[in-house]
């Protein structure tokens, strides 16, 4: 079965059609300005769970981890490249954490996530 990454995309809508909206100074874009309706696809970074708004005008390659076969955010992509391609998904980390909790082990700190 053919599988497209687009099937995973979430949906974001910010409606300022009847509102003063937000300024470029506040959010770094005119897309949320007065009278504007902003709709976009999103993805959730598999390495840190940040919800990323997909910029359709982006020309740079989007961060992608071939090991978990998922788009990742720019911060995690930089780490992945720097580490030589290491992949540790947020879900893996969380499940290890929960397993340790279940066994009564102390697992401190949650440095992998908080230091990103």
């Amino acid at each position: 079965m053919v599988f497209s990454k687009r099937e995973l995309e979430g949906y974001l809508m910010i409606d300022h059609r009847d509102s003063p909206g937000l300024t470029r100074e506040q959010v770094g874009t005119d897309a949320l300005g007065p009278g504007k309706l902003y709709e976009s696809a999103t993805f959730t970074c598999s390495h840190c769970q940040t919800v990323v708004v997909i910029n359709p005008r982006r020309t740079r390659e989007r961060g992608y981890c071939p090991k978990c076969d998922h788009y990742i955010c720019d911060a995690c992509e930089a780490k992945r490249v720097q580490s030589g391609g290491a992949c540790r998904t947020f879900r893996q980390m969380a499940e290890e954490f929960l397993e340790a909790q279940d066994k009564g082990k102390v697992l401190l700190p949650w440095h992998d996530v908080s230091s990103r």
Partner: protein
Amino acid sequence: MARRIVSVTTQTPTATADTTNLVDATYPFLLKGGSSTQINRIHEVSISGQAASSSSPTFMVLAFDSTVATGTNTNGTGQTDAPMDSSTAALSAAAITGNSNATTKPQRAATLHLMNCSLNAFGGVYFWRANKVDECVGVYGNTANIGEVSLSAFTGGTPGACGFHMVYESL
């Protein structure tokens, strides 16, 4: 398992810096696991501006909490947490979603922001929905830093009244 909707009819959130106590009833809600091994997934976040008369840039942030709430947790005024399906059975350890906490107040982590939900509360609407379960934000267990998320206003702007809801699922 079963999806639930936590909702706040109207509230004017208070802008609060990261790693600072979120004062009771000044933020819409948090979501904390009902046990140390419970997993919760967030499917949808919606914010509808209700400010009546003037521009109200409101910088809402969904983020993990670096300090999790403790003590009796209660719902604020106009807050409900209801199952999406009326036949949903109650969990023995239900997730916690109230915005008042008797002992320790939650603190938003400085490095673990998950979603920027900024809008102008004077007529603005923010809506996000995950397409599939794999894309949902997960909340794991009930301890810092991944066992609790909160939706709260970040510093800056002039937060205005909004209505909020979030769809989540306890596994």
